């Protein structure tokens, strides 16, 4: 028995020596292979590796933990561009810059005349002399911009007028209504000259293509319809949204149609292919409005407590605005001076610097005497062509005109402090 044991032990020892001789070098992975493996590892695995290694070191040798360790680990785990991954470093980057200063805004005029909510508002794009509003009282009214006097009332819809669009190339005004109709008004004769019939439910929004003779309309039935203006036929139907569409906008280049919906997405459409080439899903709640920058190829969209701007045409995230706890945002407007206006459902006006996302002014709207507390919402807004006046349409049936306080300086009106929080980065 002893002989057998010794024989076996000798055999085992021999085989171990042989294995060591033959395969010892294979237990250590060569460097070029190691880099390949590391490249395939996920962030979590890398972290585990490094954490394990550093733990071993800590236990055995160094009692003092160097500050550099943290940085090292970041760069090792995330690779070279760790700066963009690290929340803290991005925060530092953000804090090192200053947002531009803008003069604060104040109310200069209240215009009454509608007998229902003012749902939409557009400024004359040609000579900036008048603006049109559509209301829950089924009428479209045209007002003089300088004096605030009523110029014209267009009645023809049977339900709330949800959107109007004024053409730059024709003497036409288009209005979309909850009665499923889009109507074309001739502003020379002040008559309805065309109806665009085909939506299955109320139409919420309409816009005119800047170069083609097309209009885009969309509404509760969740499709964007492109109509040929003259022949009144629906040329194309863009299907994809899963909920009512809140706003549609046409651009001369791709994306030629942009639409936002209550399914919390913004879609950038490629109309030549008839489908959306980019879906922006960063928003969590229904996107009630978006707006395009007049002098830059970018847009800004908003959902509850969340405003973001996007680079066009690819739809990359540009800025997260400091918009926590703003509540439901009904309307957005941007002017040439990089002022973003957001009108809330609770009657709060907030003004942001477009580039930095800094909120520099917030105030409550001035209530019209006799209005209820529930009628505070700001439903629509627009800057005039110069960007110097802001017009808002509100649920208290009034139209309000706002202007920047003259002779204000950064010293006299510093605005809200620039203090971006880490949570505002949202990642």
């Amino acid at each position, binding site marked *: 028995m002893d002989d057998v044991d010794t024989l076996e032990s000798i055999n085992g020892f021999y085989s171990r020596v042989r294995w060591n001789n033959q395969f010892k070098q294979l237990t250590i992975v060569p460097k070029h292979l190691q880099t390949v493996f590391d490249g395939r590892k996920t962030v979590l695995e890398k972290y585990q590796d490094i954490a394990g290694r550093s733990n071993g070191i800590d236990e055995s040798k160094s009692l003092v933990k160097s500050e550099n360790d943290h940085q090292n680990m970041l760069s090792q785990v995330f690779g070279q561009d760790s700066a963009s991954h690290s929340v803290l470093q991005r925060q530092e980057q953000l804090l090192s810059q200053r947002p531009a200063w803008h003069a604060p805004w104040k109310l200069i005029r209240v215009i009454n005349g509608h007998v229902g909510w003012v749902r939409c508002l557009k400024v004359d794009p040609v000579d900036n002399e008048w603006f049109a509003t559509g209301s829950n009282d089924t009428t479209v009214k045209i007002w003089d911009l300088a004096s605030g006097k009523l110029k014209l009332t267009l009645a023809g819809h049977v339900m709330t007028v949800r959107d109007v669009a004024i053409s730059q190339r024709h003497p036409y005004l288009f209005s979309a209504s909850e009665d499923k109709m889009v109507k074309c008004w001739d502003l020379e004769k002040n008559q309805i000259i065309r109806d665009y019939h085909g939506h299955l439910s109320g139409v919420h929004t309409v816009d005119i293509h800047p170069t083609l003779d097309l209009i885009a309309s969309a509404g509760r039935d969740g499709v964007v319809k492109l109509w040929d203006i003259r022949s009144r036929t629906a040329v194309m139907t863009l299907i994809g949204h899963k909920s009512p569409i809140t706003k549609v906008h046409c651009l001369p280049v791709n994306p030629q149609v942009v639409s936002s919906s209550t399914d919390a997405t913004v879609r950038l459409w490629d109309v*030549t292919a008839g489908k959306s080439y980019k879906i922006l899903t960063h928003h969590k709640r229904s996107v009630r409005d978006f707006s395009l920058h007049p002098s830059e190829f970018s847009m800004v969209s908003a959902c509850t407590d969340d405003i973001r701007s996007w*680079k*066009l045409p690819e739809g990359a995230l540009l800025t997260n605005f400091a918009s926590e706890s703003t509540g439901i945002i009904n309307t957005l407007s941007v002017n040439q001076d990089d002022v973003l206006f957001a009108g809330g459902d609770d009657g709060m006006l907030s003004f942001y610097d477009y580039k*930095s996302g800094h909120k520099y002014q917030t105030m409550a709207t001035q209530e019209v005497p006799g209005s209820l507390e529930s009628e505070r919402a700001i439903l629509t807004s627009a800057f005039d062509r110069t960007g110097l006046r802001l017009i808002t349409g509100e649920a208290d049936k009034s139209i309000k005109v706002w202007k920047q306080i003259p002779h204000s300086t950064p010293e006299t009106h510093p605005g809200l402090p620039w203090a971006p929080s880490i949570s505002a980065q949202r*990642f």
Partner: protein
Amino acid sequence: MSFTSLLPAPKHSQSVPEDNFNAEQKNKELAVRALTHQKDEQDIERSVFDSAITNNLKFQDFVPIRQKDFGLQIPLPSQNEIDETYRRTKGIFEQILLKNTQPEAATIRNNQRALENTQEILVHSTGGKSNRKLKVIEHAKDPLQPNAHRAKKVVAPPVDEPMTPIFHKTDSVETAKKVSKEEKDMWKIPPAISSWKNPNGYTIGIDKRLAMDGRYNKDKMQAHEINDGFSQLSAALEMADRKARQELKLKAEAKKQIAEDENREKGEKLRILAQKAREERSRQRNKRSHRAIDDGYNNEATHREAIRKSRREELERDIRKSKMSTADRLRELAYSQGREVSEKVVLGAAKSTNSSGAHYDSRLFTKGANTQAKRGEGQVYDNPLFSQLGSSYRANLNKLDKDVEDEASMSAGQTKPIEFTAATDNNDADKEKEEHKEYGLSKKDDL
């Protein structure tokens, strides 16, 4: 490799060496795979879910570009780009429009296609050698005939688009939050308050509603206090109501007074006029009788003539009387008795009032306030069978009628129609009588 192996080790686990061992094991696995597998094979190995997410989801999508540099310039599209897009899109839309708006062209094309489709088939008859030709022609359709299959619901066709990753936190974290019982109760709307559960709109007292409300009948919660504004409001309303009523009453009284005054004045005026007329008549009569006395006796012929004339007149009167209507005869009679009779009395219409508002249907009063109104679905008849007998709230019809009449007459501003005015009623008439007595010639019949 499983997903669980990717998760970090439990926080308080003591198995650090095992973890290290696992990591080593994994390293080995990776090494072996890297050495043995081809690259595309590995891609296939990855699950569809993995690839869809990892290919589209990049961390950079979450990082705002402008955070690094606020001065980032994004120029507007150039005119060239715009023109180019315009040309491209216009072509496409023109094509679509052409297709849509020119059905004639389409039908022509269809016809052509149909012509092409007509095939000639040679049929070899089984018996003889003669071959027959068969022509297949498409059946002509009525273009106006409605579609046999009616699409009831318009459903958007499914869109085949690549899966898009969702770049926002889902609500699952928030919805996982436990809702406490109190919060749940706060959302519970009792049927008494809900307008959905009380579609008939039965009014329910506020105290009962509160008793039914789950939020307030709890012991731990204080009883809901009814704002004393309600009582103040009702008191104020009552006050205002009373005041308004009083004012109305005063106003009505004043109006009545004025109407009475006016009426009296008018009556006075009429009386004076009648008096004057009567005096005038009597004066003329007197004059005539004097004249008769003066020259009656000495002229026989004229006397006879007068007698003849009176006879003739009498005859004529008789003829007229026989032709007269009852009303005229009545008037005549009254006149002969020295009375003035108004037209209305003669016609028997004097009793009617000229107020238009007082035409009540007496049947209205047999019904109590809204007792017979149809209440609900369950009620078959709109009024009960024995309404006359059963109702203990029957209105006192006689009293009501009288009230209505009184009111009507009051509003008419006329106390009573003037029916008869006896000539002997007043002092003037008496005087006249005295005059008659003096002369002793007047006959009552003549009057």
